[in-house]
């Protein structure tokens, strides 16, 4: 962006005649232009910059409705201490609540994001190759992304209901016994393969989390399709034709030409989707709340869908004595996302540009 800006200015400068300089000078006259950015800056500073600093401040306090006591790094000590590893009632070492949320979130991210991107690529590639009714198909694939909301989540809750859900009915027709889905805290891999020697925390997402992943993939694939289509349309047709004339088959063209050329798009999607997925809240809240008891149950069953944002929500909003602690967990999330953003900037600035 910055190169573009200076480039533009340089072009303007090189064309400058004396009259133009006179006109330009009126717009260069100091502070006038700043008036235009004042409204935007007031809101940005009040609701974007200030909360970052204030959040860091809150995380150093024991805080419920207001500040109680300044406790320095105590919240962080608790977070990385018994929040990570703690002892259960029998005295055995178990995963703490913060580490549990991190594991849940990472399970969610590393499955939902690549799946959604892979499916998005396949669909975009097929659409790119051309098909009848391409326009309508593209609209249908894109619709979930635009409509994704609590309202649409409701139908998933019903489809995956353990008693009356249509998904269980469909599975039964191919001989698979009904599943508990959103009520099932057991890791999906254990349900499939046994693996009783594996501790639950290392066995991947619970079946309940799998339902949320299915919803998220459904809701986000359309975005990836659109971005990939725009990337694919930038690949020169001559290159593809030349490869075909040289006798390269469909698969070869796809793997050796299209996939490498489109890799900047893949990288972009991977990072931005990961950043967004780390903050997942709505589907977890809407799909898991009712399966437990009352409003505090989002993240059920047995906290196996308790992603970091839902964890923060729970501690901040439903246990108002833990606001400082929730703020500390927010800072941990911010740290993770900051690292991801840095990676994006580092590698992103080196990547090839696509139109």
């Amino acid at each position, binding site marked *: 962006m910055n190169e573009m800006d200076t480039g533009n200015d340089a072009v303007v400068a090189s064309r400058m005649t004396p009259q*133009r300089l006179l*006109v330009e000078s009126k717009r260069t006259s100091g502070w006038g232009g700043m008036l*235009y950015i004042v409204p935007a800056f007031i809101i940005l500073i009040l609701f974007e910059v200030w909360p970052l600093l204030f959040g860091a401040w809150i995380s150093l306090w024991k805080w419920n409705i207001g500040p109680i006591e300044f406790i320095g790094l105590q919240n962080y000590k608790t977070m990385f201490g018994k929040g990570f590893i703690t002892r259960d009632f029998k005295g055995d070492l178990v995963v703490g609540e913060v580490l549990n949320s991190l594991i849940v979130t990472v399970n969610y991210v590393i499955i939902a994001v690549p799946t959604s991107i892979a499916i998005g690529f396949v669909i975009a590639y097929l659409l790119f190759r051309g098909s009848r009714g391409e326009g309508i198909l593209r609209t249908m694939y894109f619709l*979930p992304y*635009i409509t994704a909301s609590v309202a649409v989540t*409701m139908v998933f809750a019903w489809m995956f209901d353990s008693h*009356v859900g249509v998904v269980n009915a469909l599975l039964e027709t191919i001989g698979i016994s009904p599943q508990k889905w959103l009520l099932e805290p057991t890791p999906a891999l254990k349900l499939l393969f046994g693996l009783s020697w594996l501790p639950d925390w290392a066995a991947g997402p619970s079946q309940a989390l799998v339902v949320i992943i299915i919803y998220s993939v459904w809701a986000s694939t359309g975005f990836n399709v659109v971005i990939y289509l725009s990337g694919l349309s930038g690949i020169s047709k001559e290159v593809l034709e030349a490869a075909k004339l040289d006798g390269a088959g469909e698969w070869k063209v796809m793997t050796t030409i299209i996939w490498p050329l489109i890799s900047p798009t893949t990288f972009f999607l991977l990072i931005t989707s990961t950043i967004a997925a780390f*903050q997942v809240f709505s589907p977890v809240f809407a799909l898991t709340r009712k399966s437990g008891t009352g409003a505090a149950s989002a993240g059920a069953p047995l906290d196996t869908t308790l992603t970091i944002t839902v964890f923060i929500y729970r501690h901040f909003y439903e246990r108002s004595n833990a606001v400082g602690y929730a*703020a500390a967990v927010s800072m941990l999330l911010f740290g993770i996302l900051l690292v991801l953003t840095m990676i994006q900037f580092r590698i992103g600035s080196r990547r090839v540009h696509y139109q």
Partner: protein
Amino acid sequence: MSAEQIRVSVPEAPSKFKLPKLTTVLLVLGACVVVFPFVWMILGSFKTMQESSSYPPQVFPSQLHWENYKNAWLAPPNTLGKYFINTIIVAFTGTIGQLMVCSLAAYAFAQLKFRGKDILFALVLGTMMIPGEITLIPNFMTIRHFPLMGGNDILGSGGTGLYDTYAAQIIPGMVGAFNIFLLRQSFMQIPKDFWEAAQIDGSNSFRYLWEVVIPMSKPIMITVFLLGLVGRWNALLWPLIVTRDETLRPVQLAMIWYQGEFSADQGVVMAASLLVTIPIVILFLFMQRHFIEGIVGSGLKG
């Protein structure tokens, strides 16, 4: 037709020409899976309580039970209409406000010159790196302790501040650095000669923005407007946190209410879901091109 032409030009690979058909079949199958939840929602919205809770599920309702829609509309304390009014107020005010505030800033960054412009623009872009979920708790505090509002004193204590107001739902998300960036990109395309011509006609910079820059940037304005509107229509977390009063809450929170009250009667829940989703679907179908352009634009953000 085109397949025939290619067959002539590349005769050595006949297997390719069955593929377009296979492509279509695969795409249609995929689309069926994608659209299925919507179909199931529509079918469900016409089912009685018995039909929606039968197992194995009854695919088609025995008759179209339109009363589900009536029940869904009338069930909440102030009808679903009240939630709709709330969402419309919040979404339209927020999005129009966003367009105005962002256009002013984008115009300054694109066309005007002032001290510190580059640093200030970098600062705007920098705020894109702050994830919304991080600002949740402090922003709640800011709303709750907003001075001189909702019974608060000048130090922000004593009352509830902007908690449970439209303003709390509208103002915090009103800017969006990315929108400033998108609008600026578009405003920069306008040749500087236009500004000179306008000045000879006696225009000032604000009139120039209003009469020339904005009308010339209509497509991007529409895109920013639509994406802002849909984002606000579908929002959950922020309104959930800054409101408690059901008469001020938006439609997505109505869905949470239905989930609690009608967990046994999926017909009514599906009817409500459909009513809440339909406006966005219609908007999308008519304005699809603008949506796609906006999304592709967001792909250039990195």
